[in-house]
Structures are given as structure tokens and as C-alpha cells.
């Protein structure tokens, strides 16, 4: 049965304007919002860091009072981790994953919209605390009992706990969306072992988030119950235990490090083949390393608690896991080296950023291995040595690959090349500034400077190293500014990018820059790990039908494929833009402000609006959404498998025929 095709532009187009800017379900528009928002939070978190560094440039400075300083370092941590690093990688993921796997949308477009708005709203919620000068001030790790109602009676910690519960909704929704998209929507032929490493990185990141986030949400709920409703989870006087908070926090908090690191390593292993003009050496091992890191990452949380007095036997187990987690990193570093040595390295700006990251990652990895040793960690934990270590890993991972990605994918996203010269200036400023800012912290830590102090005394020999760090911070800020200027300039004046300016190997380069609303004119059929290198017919996104290209030009639809082998399974109609995710966010915002101010009416109204929005969101309206199953060639293994699994699928014998589940008419199959 052949149904007339409609123009893809009409099927996928959204009218530009404020209305659809709010309601859009287009992954590219949402991704750009993610990126802009995350970079604004990078700016805010950076300003906080610069205020702190100015205060610490010399002993006994009094630029800000201790209360403000404590709020600044708490919000700096929260901002950089939750509002910059995680969203920026989600942003690149939301943009690139559908393109890299050759589909047209995320699996749940409206959920995608909601998770963005919920992230922004949670960020605004937490930052609104500055308006009443009551920002969270118990550290991003928020240890009890310092964070309970006795020692922090103000609303500071309520902003933290409620904000993170709110953010947890966004993060969990996004994780489900990513995992479904990656596992079920890859272009036909993109078997798991042909999936780009960045997509693997996103998969590892989102799987970790899905399993780690509940611990933080739970801990935050328990803390709110203890603060306001007389529960005693963390109160030793009533049989509770403060160590419980630390376990719950770090069983989330340590995987979080890998949640930030894994997509960064994915970006690395995606940019590297392009700029060494060869495939990744040891692709399988690199992928296994990514997944192994995500897995082992759940077994090392107690190494944040080596100084809490837990028994030595328990510490030894966590110590060995902490050493082990370095092995996958070792595999990846040596795979990168082998790729560089056997390829033709091209030192464009994206390549510079990832090479810079490789050096930083190795230094951070080496200091991390040191900290895996219990006696060494007991000496250095809670000192500037550890501040140095995790900035090398986390800030290194969140800055360098992100900036590399801006230069690498920027031409795809905005259609114009960024300026190379400014890019190189920016790289060197950031690289030199970064090392100047963070390397001396190792030495200061060993000299005895503890973390989270708002000032220090004269005569300890700490002044000049601290001054060096402060200078480094400002140099780094200049480098970031250089990229910002470069970006603004390039948006108007940059050279037009064309489909594939770098000669890359992945599918996002097989369509125009920026991609059309529907991403690909035809859903490609992939036969290689490097589709755009090995399948020349793919290059303009119009793979002809005889080569496997599928237009799917009816309705707003995408192809669902099988989990391992990406054989077509079903055609799925996706919903279009909607304002209900925005209303849901508004409702939740009302609920959380109600809970914060303890105005029951506001919370109830917010809850009601949320409930109404959810119902309205999924309420079936005019446009019917269908899913119809594709039967595969008779006799093929997966055909019989499917027949066994879903007896209702009628095979019509053709590779492209499609049968609908009973009582549900499927048009256009």
C-alpha cells in the first residue's frame, strides 16, 4: 500500500516566534536553549569563582564577608556541576544524538521540552535565593548536621534541597529520553558496534544519571522531612546517623563525576578521528572502557569518606575499586595515543582543545590514583590538593571538550565556521590559565591549606601561590571571553560551513549546516562505523531509496529499530510542539515555592496546575499518533523472533510492509 508523500518541510516546520520558542519540540531548538542556558550558568559560576579567587589572592583580605563567601562556594559548586556541566553535555547530546544516529527527533519530544524548562526553572529557583541573601551555604555536599534546622535555621538549605528535587525531575526525564532514543531510534544498520563513541558516552552518562539521581532526591526529601517535620534520619540523638547523609550523597556524587567525564571522553573520541584522519584505534576497547567506568563508578563512593573513621577492611574494598576505575581511563588514553601516532594529526582548534584536555586528564588521573590510596587520601582529603585534583578532572572535562565541541560542532549548529586564529588564542589562554589556576593548588594542599576557608593567615607561605592561582583564573576568563567574542563575530561574519567542513566520519555531517527541520531528507541506511567516510552516497543526506534511504514523508514520524542490530521495527508518529510542558513547569515552580515559603495554598495551586498540565499534555486530540509494526523479511532470525514475541504482527512477506496491531488502523504503511 503506497500513500502519497507530503513535503517534509510542512510536516516538520515550526513557525518561528516567541510562542514556539517556548513550546518547541524540535530537538535542535531545545538543544540550543540548553547550550545557551548552560553557558550563561558557566558565566555566573565563573564570576563566583573570580570573586572567591580575588578574596584569596592574599592573606586576610576582606572583599566579601564569610557568610557571602560560603554562599559563593556552595553556589559555585552547584552551578558548575548541576547547571553547567550536566546540561551542557545534555545540550550537545540533544542536538547531536538524533543526528549522529540518523533519526529526526528525540524519542519523547515534549518530554525533551519539559526537561529543559524544568532545568531552567530549578536553576532560577535556586538562584532566587540570592535576592533575599539566603543562598545555600552548607557546601554543595551539604553535610548534616551543619545543614539541619539547628545549625542552618534559615531557608538557605531549603532552596538547596527543593531545588535539587526539582532538578532531579528534569535530569531523570532527560535520561529516560536519551536512553530510549539511543537504544530504539538508530538508523537501520547502525548496530551497537557501529554507534559513534559520543553516543556511547551519552548513553553511559544518562544510564548513570538514571540510577544515581534517586539517591540525591531521596536524601533531599529526607533532609526536608528532618528540617521541617521532626524526622530524625540524620540525628544521632534519636538513633539516626550523620554518615547516612554522606553515603546517600556520595552514592550519587561520585557517579556524577563520571556523568560529567563520560560524555567529555565521548566528545574526545569523536573529534580525534576527524583530526587524525583515521578511525579510532581500539574502538571496541574504548567503548567497553566507557561502560566499565560508568559501572565501576557506582562502587567507589566511600573514597569521599576515608577520613570518617570507617573500618579499615571496608576502606580497602573501596580503595581497590578506586584504583580499578583508573584502568578504563588508561585504556582510553593509550587508545588516543595510538590513534595520534598512527594518524595524521591536524592541529585545528577543536583538536587543540582535546589535546589540552588529554594532558589535563592525565594529570588529574594521576592525582586521583594517589587519592585512591587510603593513607594518602587521609592526608590530602579536604585540602587544596583535592580541589586541584577534581578541577583537573571535572573542570577539565567540562571546559576543554565543551570548547572543543563548540569549535567542532558550532559550524553544524550555526552554519558558520568560527575564527581559527581567535580559537587558538582562546585555547592557549584557557590552557595556560587553567594550569596556573589549579596546579599550585596541589602544592598548597600538601603545605596544609584546607578547603572552603574564606581567608587565611599571613606568614604561612601560602600567599604567592594563591596570587598565582588568582592570576590564572583571570587568564582563563580572558580565554573564555575570546571564544565568546569569536562566536558573536562568527555568527555574522564567519565563513559558511557547508555540510561537512572537517571531513568527518559521523552522520551529523551528512546533512546541511544547520540541518533542516527534519534533519535528513531520507533516513539513511548505515553500513559502517564511519558512514560518511565509507558511504559516499550519504554525504548530502539524500541517500537514494535503492541505497536504503527512507523518506518517511507522512506525518511527523520516525523509525524505531531493534536494540542490538537496528533493524526496522516500527514507524512511530511523534507529537509536535506543545505549551503544556511549560505549564507543567510553571505548576511545579508554584509547588516548590509553596513548599519553600510553606504557603499551602500556593503549593496546592501549583500541584493542581501540574496535574492539569500532565492530563492536557497527553490528552488525545485531532492529530492521531500511531505506531505500526514493520515485519521483516520472512525467515530471517529476527522475523521469527518477532513473530513469537508479538503474534499480532502479520507478516506480509516484504521487507517494507507493515501491519498494525489489531483494532488500530494504520494509514500509510
Amino acid at each position, binding site marked *: 500500500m503506497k500513500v502519497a508523500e507530503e513535503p517534509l518541510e510542512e510536516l516538520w516546520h515550526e513557525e518561528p516566534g516567541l510562542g514556539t520558542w517556548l513550546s518547541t519540540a524540535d530537538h535542535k531548538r531545545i538543544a540550543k536553549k540548553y547550550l545557551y542556558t548552560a553557558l550563561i550558568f558557566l558565566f555566573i559560576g565563573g564570576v563566583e569563582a573570580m570573586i572567591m579567587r580575588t578574596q584569596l589572592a592574599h592573606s586576610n583580605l576582606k572583599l566579601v564577608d564569610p557568610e557571602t563567601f560560603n554562599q559563593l562556594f556552595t553556589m559555585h559548586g552547584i552551578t558548575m556541576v548541576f547547571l553547567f556541566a550536566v546540561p551542557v553535555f545534555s545540550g550537545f547530546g540533544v542536538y547531536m544524538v538524533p543526528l549522529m544516529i540518523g533519526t529526526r527527533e528525540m524519542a519523547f519530544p515534549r518530554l525533551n521540552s519539559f526537561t529543559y524548562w524544568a532545568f531552567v526553572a530549578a536553576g532560577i529557583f535556586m538562584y532566587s535565593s540570592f535576592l533575599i541573601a539566603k543562598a545555600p551555604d552548607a557546601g554543595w555536599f551539604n*553535610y548534616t548536621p*551543619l545543614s539541619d534546622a539547628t545549625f542552618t535555621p534559615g531557608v538557605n538549605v531549603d532552596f538547596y534541597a527543593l531545588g535539587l528535587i526539582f532538578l532531579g525531575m528534569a535530569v531523570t526525564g532527560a535520561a529516560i529520553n536519551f536512553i530510549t532514543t539511543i537504544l530504539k531510534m538508530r538508523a537501520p544498520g547502525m548496530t551497537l558496534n557501529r554507534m559513534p563513541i559520543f553516543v556511547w558516552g551519552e548513553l553511559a552518562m544518562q544510564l548513570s544519571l538514571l540510577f544515581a539521581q534517586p539517591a540525591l532526591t531521596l536524601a533531599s526529601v529526607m533532609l526536608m522531612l528532618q528540617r521541617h517535620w521532626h524526622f530524625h534520619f540524620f540525628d544521632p540523638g534519636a538513633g539516626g546517623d550523620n554518615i547516612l547523609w554522606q553515603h546517600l550523597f556520595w552514592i550519587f556524587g561520585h557517579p556524577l563525576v563520571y556523568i560529567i567525564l563520560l560524555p567529555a571522553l565521548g566528545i574526545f573520541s569523536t573529534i580525534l578521528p576527524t583530526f587524525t584522519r583515521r578511525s579510532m584505534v581500539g574502538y571496541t576497547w574504548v567503548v567497553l572502557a566507557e561502560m566499565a567506568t560508568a559501572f565501576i563508578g557506582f562502587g567507589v563512593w566511600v573514597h569521599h569518606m576515608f577520613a570518617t573513621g570507617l573500618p579499615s577492611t571496608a576502606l580497602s574494598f573501596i580503595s581497590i575499586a578506586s*584504583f580499578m576505575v583508573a584502568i578504563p581511563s588508561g585504556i582510553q588514553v*593509550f587508545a588516543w595515543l595510538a590513534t595520534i601516532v598512527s594518524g*595524521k594529526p591536524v592541529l585545528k582548534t577543536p583538536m587543540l582543545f582535546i589535546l589540552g584536555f588529554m594532558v589535563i586528564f592525565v594529570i588529574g588521573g*594521576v592525582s586521583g590514583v594517589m587519592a585512591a590510596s587510603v593513607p594518602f587520601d587521609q592526608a590530602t582529603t579536604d585540602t587544596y590538593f583535592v580541589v586541584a585534583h577534581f578541577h583537573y578532572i571535572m573542570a577539565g572535562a567540562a571546559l576543554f571538550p565543551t570548547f572543543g565541541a563548540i569549535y567542532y560542532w558550532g559550524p553544524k549548529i550555526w552554519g558558520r565556521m568560527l575564527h581559527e586564529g581567535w580559537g587558538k588564542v582562546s585555547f592557549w589562554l584557557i590552557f595556560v590559565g587553567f594550569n596556573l589556576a589549579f596546579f599550585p593548588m596541589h602544592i598548597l594542599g600538601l603545605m596544609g591549606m584546607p578547603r572552603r*576557608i574564606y581567608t587565611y593567615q599571613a606568614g*604561612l607561605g601560602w600567599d604567592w601561590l594563591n596570587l598565582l592561582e588568582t592570576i590564572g583564573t583571570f587568564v582563563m576568563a580572558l580565554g573564555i571571553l575570546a571564544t565568546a567574542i569569536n562566536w558573536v563575530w562568527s555568527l555574522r561574519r564567519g565563513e559558511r560551513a557547508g555540510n561537512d567542513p572537517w571531513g568527518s566520519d559521523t552522520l551529523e555531517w551528512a546533512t546541511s549546516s544547520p540541518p533542516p527541520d527534519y534533519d535528513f531528507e531520507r533516513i539513511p541506511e548505515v553500513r559502517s562505523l564511519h558512514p560518511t567516510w565509507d558511504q559516499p552516497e550519504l554525504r548530502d543526506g539524500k541517500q537514494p531509496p535503492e541505497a536504503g534511504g527512507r523518506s518517511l514523508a507522512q506525518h511527523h514520524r520516525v523509525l524505531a529499530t531493534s536494540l542490538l542490530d537496528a533493524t526496522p521495527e516500527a514507524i512511530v508518529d511523534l507529537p509536535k510542539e506543545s505549551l503544556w510542558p511549560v505549564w507543567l513547569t510553571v505548576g511545579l515552580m508554584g509547588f516548590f515555592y509553596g513548599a519553600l515559603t510553606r504557603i499551602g495554598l500556593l503549593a496546592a495551586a501549583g500541584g493542581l496546575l501540574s496535574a492539569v498540565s500532565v492530563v492536557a499534555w497527553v490528552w488525545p486530540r485531532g492529530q492521531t499518533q500511531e505506531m505500526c509494526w514493520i515485519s521483516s523479511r520472512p525467515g530471517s532470525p529476527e522475523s521469527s523472533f518477532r513473530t513469537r514475541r508479538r503474534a499480532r504482527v502479520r507478516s506480509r512477506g516484504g521487507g517494507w510492509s507493515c501491519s498494525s496491531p489489531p483494532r488500530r488502523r494504520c494509514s500509510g504503511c
Partner: protein
Amino acid sequence: MLAVGTAVTLFVVVMGAVGIMRGRHRDEASIERDVPWGERFVLIAGLGVTGVILAAFFLVSVRAMASLDKQGRSTALTIDITGHDWWWEARYPNGAVTANEIHVPAGQRVSLRLRSDDVIHSLWVPQLAPKIDLIPGRLNHLWLEADKPGQYRGQCAEYCGLQHAHMIFFVVADPPGAFDRWMRAMAVPAVDPSDPLAQEGRALFLGQSCAGCHAIRGTDATGELGPDLTHFATRRTLAAGTLAVSPETLTEWILDPQSIKPGVTMPPADLAPDQVRAIVAYLLSLGFGSTP
């Protein structure tokens, strides 16, 4: 560990740099899709060599841990340390009590029993011992040994609120004989001053709110909120290492502690200048008297 770490970093940097130098002018067509040595190199270097180095590190670190545990089992003396917002209390078995200055005999292992009175603190003397947290509801242990007599600076390492930056203390290692004399003298109650100004100060101290929070053994002052001041004049610092003890700093501190250490529990004193002078004179008279 540092040497191996540096070697690994250098190896990566040098190999990367050599690779870039040699590969930059390579003919693209000559690049092979599969490098036979590539996967072998990744496995040998990434899994094998990394694994062996890490296993060795682990064994060394576990042995160090076991040896530290074992050495901690026999100690000469046990001191009880309590962390407070934001100062340290030290109690000795003979009843001596002091604050922010932990005296130990040099060359002997000393065991610390650690508790917290409010939030989590962490005791850290970088030159002497690893750090250990003081956690409300839990009892932790740490041993330390100062090889040579001297003064070792320590500081709270776990963020504990507003004045985490000013929770400093000193471990003072005395030669064993001197330490015994110190501990005995510290346990003796304060001697009443003979100087009239100091006597006036004593009356003011006991009559004003001071005695509500501070204890001076041998007087009616038995407060427990702030540090024990029985032999205050023997200490080197004030307000948990914030200031050196002198008549000027002490005057400043008594009049307005909040401007020096914002958020500290001690309230500003509503006293006339000569009253403060009297209290300062009294506090500075609280030495060891004639005992040592």
C-alpha cells in the same frame, strides 16, 4: 607514587608530541584503517601496564594502612579532643583541660579520642598525622607522634560553618620531662591573683556574663560553652589560633569578638575601658603560678 605519576604524565606528553610531529606531514592515503599493533598496544599499555602499576600501588597502600593501624594499638597517653564551633577542647587523663593547644610528649605515640559537640569537624596536623573527622554521635580515634619537640600547626579540615577558616590549633611537642610537668601544672586550679587590678578583673569576670560560658577551675566560673581559661596566660593564641595573645589583642577581642571572628558564639562585652583593662590583667595573670 609521585615519581611514577610524573613518569606516566611525561610518557603521554612525549608520545603525543612525537606522534604529532611525525604524523603531521604523513600522506593521508597511507593511513591504514587497521593498525595491527594498535589494539595490542592499547591492551598491553592500558590494561596490562596500568593494571600492574595500580595493583602495586594498592598493595603498598594497604600495607601502609595496616602498619598505621598496628602502630596505633600501643600508645603512651590518651587525650580526649572535642570539636566545637569553632575551637578545640583537649582533656587529659589527670584532669588537665585546655583549648586549641594540644601538648604531647615528643618521641612518644599519643592516642586521641575524638568527639564533636555540634557539627562535623576534622582534625588535621599536616606534619604529624592523617586527618580524621569528628562526627556527632560517633567516637573516632587517631594516633600521632612528634619525633622532635616543636610546635605543629593544625586546622579544621571539614567545612563546619561560618568560621571554618578560623578553627586553628597547635600541637606542641615538649621533651618528655617538660611535658609531664606541663600536664601536672595544667591540672592544678588557678591561683588567685595578688595584683589589685587583676583582683578587680577577677571580680568582674565572675560577676559579668563571662563566667556563664567559661570555666576557671578554682573559682565559681564553671561555664562549659567556651574554652576553659584556667591557665589562659600559658597559651600562645587566642580565638582558636586567630590572634596571638597580648594585652592589646585580648582587649580588642573582649570588646568586639564579632568584628574579628564574625559569627563566633561570644557576644560583644558592654564594659568600660578600665573594666576591660582589669579583666585583661586577670586573664594574663592566669599562668602556672609557682607550680612548675
